[in-house]
């Protein structure tokens, strides 16, 4: 007998049967498809404005160009969403802020996902005292009021975009860790993992090539739902003045700067708030539709 036949790899599971069926179910969900389309659109806007900002190209105006003669103008043909107290165009600032929000969302989730998956996988796969110690650490972190912890750390370390991303990532991995651990606890007892172990596969190979791809669906869903959480947290920090610092526009700090003038200029609060709300809602609805699509797959099994 030659070497053991390769077991189904990550690619095989993702491109064939169940994965594709989940995707087909997702396409039949109108709410999910609409939400995903809005997410895609936001992504495109953020990408285009982000790249444009690198080359100094802005639409429709330079988001940081002040013009005191034009300050606090109500929405009109020249300034679709009005101008703020320094005469800066609100639409330009909203568009310019979009890539900050999405960057914070995506990278913070990437950080929290890496930690969460690593801790959950080790904890669930090894079990025993390692599991015990790691889960008590998770318990301890869950005792902190998360937002307050983030606020303390950001305020004391200084509110740069990197600090904000890393700190949000560092405090929000506990949910992922618990979820991945639970998946690993069940999957490590399954037939195919035992088979892999009997064939002499090493633990890292079993964890990454065999168990992880099968736990992918819930992990992807947590990631999609984690993005709006991070976006909302960043907006909250910006609102308190501890977010990404001015003059860089973010959705949160446009509201924060605008609240002083709100009685005269409703557009300074209403539009950026709507942007945060629509972005967060689309991610949540898309994530929930993905969850449903993945779940009906496991139910059928």
């Amino acid at each position, binding site marked *: 007998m030659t070497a053991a036949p390769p077991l189904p790899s990550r690619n095989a599971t993702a491109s064939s049967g169940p994965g594709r069926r989940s995707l087909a179910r997702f396409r039949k969900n109108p709410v999910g498809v609409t939400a995903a389309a809005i997410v895609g659109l936001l992504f495109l806007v953020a990408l285009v404005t982000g790249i444009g900002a690198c080359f100094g190209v802005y639409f429709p105006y330079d988001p940081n160009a002040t013009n005191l003669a034009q300050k606090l103008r109500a929405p009109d043909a020249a300034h679709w969403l009005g101008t703020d107290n320094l005469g800066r165009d609100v639409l330009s600032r909203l568009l310019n802020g979009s890539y900050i929000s999405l960057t914070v969302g995506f990278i913070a989730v990437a950080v929290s996902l890496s930690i969460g998956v690593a801790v959950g996988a080790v904890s669930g796969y090894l079990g025993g005292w390692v599991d015990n110690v790691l889960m008590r650490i998770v318990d301890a972190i869950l005792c902190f009021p998360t937002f307050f912890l983030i606020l303390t750390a950001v305020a004391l*370390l200084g509110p740069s975009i990197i600090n904000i991303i890393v700190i949000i990532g560092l405090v929000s991995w506990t949910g992922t860790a618990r979820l991945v651990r639970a998946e690993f606890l069940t999957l490590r007892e399954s037939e195919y993992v035992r088979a892999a172990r009997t064939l002499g596969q090493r633990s890292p190979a079993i964890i990454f090539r065999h168990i992880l791809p099968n736990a992918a669906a819930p992990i992807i869903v947590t990631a999609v739902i984690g993005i709006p959480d991070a976006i909302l947290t960043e907006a909250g920090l910006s609102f308190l003045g501890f977010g990404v610092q001015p003059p860089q526009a973010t959705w949160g700090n446009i509201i924060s700067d605008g609240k002083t003038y709100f009685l005269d200029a409703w557009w300074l609060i209403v539009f950026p708030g709507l942007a945060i709300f629509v972005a967060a809602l689309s991610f949540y609805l898309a994530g929930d539709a993905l969850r449903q699509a993945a779940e009906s797959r496991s139910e059928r099994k």
Partner: protein
Amino acid sequence: MVTFIIRRLLISTVLLFLISVVSFFIITLTPGSPYPWGELNPKISPQVKEAFKKKFHLDRPLYEQYWLNMKGLFSGTLTSIKDDRPVLDRIGERLPATVRLNVLAIVISLTFGLLLGVYAARHAGTLPDLLTSILAFVFIALPGFWVSNLIVIGLVKFTDAPILGTQTYGTDFPNLVSLWLDQFWHLALPAMVLSIGGIAVQSRYIRASMLETLREDYIRTARAKGLGDDVIFYKHALRNSIRPLITGIGGLLPALIGGSVIIETIFAYPGLGRLGYEAVLERDYPTLVALNFIVAALVLLGNLISDLLYAVVDPRVRLE
């Protein structure tokens, strides 16, 4: 039961120790200093600086500072850098307001979450279910600070309703009832905004829990007996589905205290969240250390109580 409580208390003590160490080092190791003057301010004589450092033990090594802070916290002698008052007094006078706010927010979250979740589960798979699901996500996605700002400013602009603080200042209340009414009105808005997210999360839990219960064998038995849908749903399934809510309460606490930092700031509500926010701004280390410790202790206690409650309502759960 007794051994369970003792074991949990021991574990909680260890956790609390770890939390206090970590939060102490997060607070003190970060750059910046708590001095009320600029580090290089020439007008402050070195003697005054030394005396200040000595008073708050800032001249000692960190591990000693930790020990002195903790000792001060437990003996009640730890004072705030800002106004030199004992931190326990500062926290104590804010605690009732926070407890009132959070308890009301939890009650609102549970009540409306339950109603919404049960309604969605009863109509599972139909349009009303879809709409309530979307509504739940709308609630989660609404940024609390945005909503509360819109409410505050809308009320200021269109009514003369008093909304800031815990009661209307400068008013003499003829009797206790009118004072309570006034306080309740001041409490209601922040509590409502604070519970928006909680309502949504609870309704999703309840819905999932109901649908899971409806797949149980005893539900099939009840159906086979010929019981009506409503009886099965409200009498058999509902009672067994609301138990997970109780464990949810413990988890709600830290989120509410965290969320109330923003809400309390907007509504100028003198609770622990705002105290913490002010202490962060002022780098008031003793207050921050004490606050983190007390909040963590409250959360651990809340978790313990919700576990015990869970065992009381569900005799199948064995505490070991």
